């Protein structure tokens, strides 16, 4: 999978991938937009007149204007400031959660494939169990336990129910890789099992893992929105795109619909851009990817 093209210079694969990625205009556009989203969400509020928790007693439920870019809510909160605040949380949850879930998937999948036997059977059964019982249900049931605590618990839970499909793919990749000569050589040289997994197996799937982590960002953002919509995820006073949509979806279709449209459309745009990046990365890293790498 790596350096199969026979180019000798060590950094040439990286350069090749970069060139392929840059050639994909849509992916590049997506990346640019994601960076912009980050910039706006984190730096934007510093240059903006209103704070997300600040009331404007002179403007209740006002449509977008020069003073309030996205209008105001019924209580006089500024929608732009709130949306940016929500986006901060959604972005960080997506990013941290995606890295965590890919890490879990890599370790669990590689362990299942490499050790086989009971480890393998146990992990496969766990994966099947979690696929039968969707993570959404479990997190919703557990939500009273992390209410009024830090949202970091929520991120860990999200990641804990996102890794299964990836782990399956990693497992099957491990099964074919572990019979290769360099793995045998490492084993006969006395390298410990976990070191083989971390140093020799996983780096050989790095392309797949990078793609997976990128796509996980968008799935996690979607999962966060879904759970927070029902009050099972991010809790007030924290704001995320999910809580904003929960607060304002009933305004959609009325003249106050802007309260819903701004966060909703920004959310869709964000997820779309992350997916564009993921798709571009897939094409750049693994031009022959077929069904072997789902999603």
């Amino acid at each position, binding site marked *: 999978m790596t350096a199969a093209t026979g180019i000798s210079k060590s950094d040439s694969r990286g350069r090749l991938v970069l060139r392929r990625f840059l050639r994909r205009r849509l992916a590049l556009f997506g990346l640019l937009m994601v960076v912009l989203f980050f910039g706006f969400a984190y730096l934007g509020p510093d240059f903006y007149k209103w704070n997300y928790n600040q009331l404007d007693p002179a403007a209740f439920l006002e449509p977008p204007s020069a003073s309030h870019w996205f209008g105001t809510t019924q209580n006089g909160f500024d929608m732009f400031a709130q949306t940016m605040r929500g986006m901060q949380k959604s972005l960080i949850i997506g990013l941290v959660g995606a890295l965590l879930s890919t890490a879990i998937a890599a370790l669990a999948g590689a362990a299942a494939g490499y050790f086989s036997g009971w480890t393998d059977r146990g992990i496969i059964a766990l994966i099947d*169990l979690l696929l*039968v019982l*969707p993570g959404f249900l479990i997190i919703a*049931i557990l939500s*009273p336990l992390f209410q009024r605590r830090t949202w970091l618990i929520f991120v860990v839970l999200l990641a804990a129910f996102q890794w299964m499909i990836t782990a399956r793919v990693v497992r099957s990749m491990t099964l074919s890789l572990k019979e290769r000569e360099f793995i045998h050589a490492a084993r006969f040289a006395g390298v410990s099992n976990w070191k083989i997994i971390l140093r020799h197996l996983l780096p050989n799937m790095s392309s797949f893992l990078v793609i997976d982590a990128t796509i996980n960002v968008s799935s996690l953002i979607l999962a966060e929105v879904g759970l927070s919509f*029902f009050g099972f995820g991010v809790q007030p006073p924290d704001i995320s795109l999910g809580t904003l*949509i929960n607060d304002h979806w009933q305004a959609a279709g009325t003249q106050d619909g802007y309260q819903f449209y701004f966060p909703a459309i920004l959310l869709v745009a964000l*997820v779309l851009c992350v997916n564009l990046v993921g798709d571009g990365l897939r094409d750049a890293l693994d031009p022959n990817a077929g069904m072997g790498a789902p999603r």
Partner: protein
Amino acid sequence: MFLLRRLVYLVLLVVLATSLTYVLAALALNPRSNFEGRNPAPPPAVVDALLDDLNLNNKTPMLKRFGHWTEGLIHGSLGKTIDGGSVNDEMGRRMGVSLRLLLIGSILGSLAGVAAGAYSAVKQYGFSDHLMTFVSFVILSIPTVVLSVFIAIGGTSVNDLLGRRIVYNTGEYTPGLSNWTEAGITDRLEHLILPSLVLILQGFAFYSRYQRNSMLDVLGSDFVRTAQAKGLRRPQALIKHALRTALIPMGTFFAYEFALIFIGSIFVEKIFTWHGMGEWFIQSIQRNDVNATAAIGMFVAVLVLIAGFLSDLVTAMLDPRVRRS
């Protein structure tokens, strides 16, 4: 033999999943708070008696409560809801509502997706392929809540445009119309269209993407060329040889997607105010209703089991290698 082994395994998973839901719900939810929050607060002894009656008393050890619940389950009773009603009755009422949505959504969605994906692959890089890829890409980026709201608004605009009401975006039927008359059935259909559309669109986007990839993998293979070389016409070769093979990997997704479609229906029921299992799930958690939550966990697990078993059946039908092993 293969199917029997799968069935046993799947049943085992359902038992595990249901027990896990019960234990987690019993751990996380606190039914006592429902009663203690009342004004005036009832004396603790009364609360204990109430909770004991519902098998929800957190002073009883978890194992004992779980045992009691399992015993009821063996006799066909899922316990009592937090109001003291029967979980079975409530579930019977709501199941039909959800199943209608879920079945229509999953069947039409997967059929449309498979057909579109296969067609896309045959016409790779054509206009229809680009359009289909783009549409499914966009749909997959929209959260179910937002998609439902958009479709609900879209329905209203269609009504406005035509000047009369042809689709409804709240509720399941108009109260007062009798069930089996023509007007009653049309009315139900008019209520069904928009919510189903959400699930169908998502299923379509999901399946068309995978089906396209899987079909592309198959189209390049020798046996499709051989089939054509033997004199089969192209559509015949494509459908009988290529599509049949390309469908095999879809089976695995079908079971997995069924769990996802249930999640989707939770949002759909909320936005379109249907009173199905999804709405009940949300309410049960908010009201600390352990028995109802466990029942819903079982419902989902059984659905996934059936979907999984069906897809195993289809796989065995399509793939002779599986039958032989």
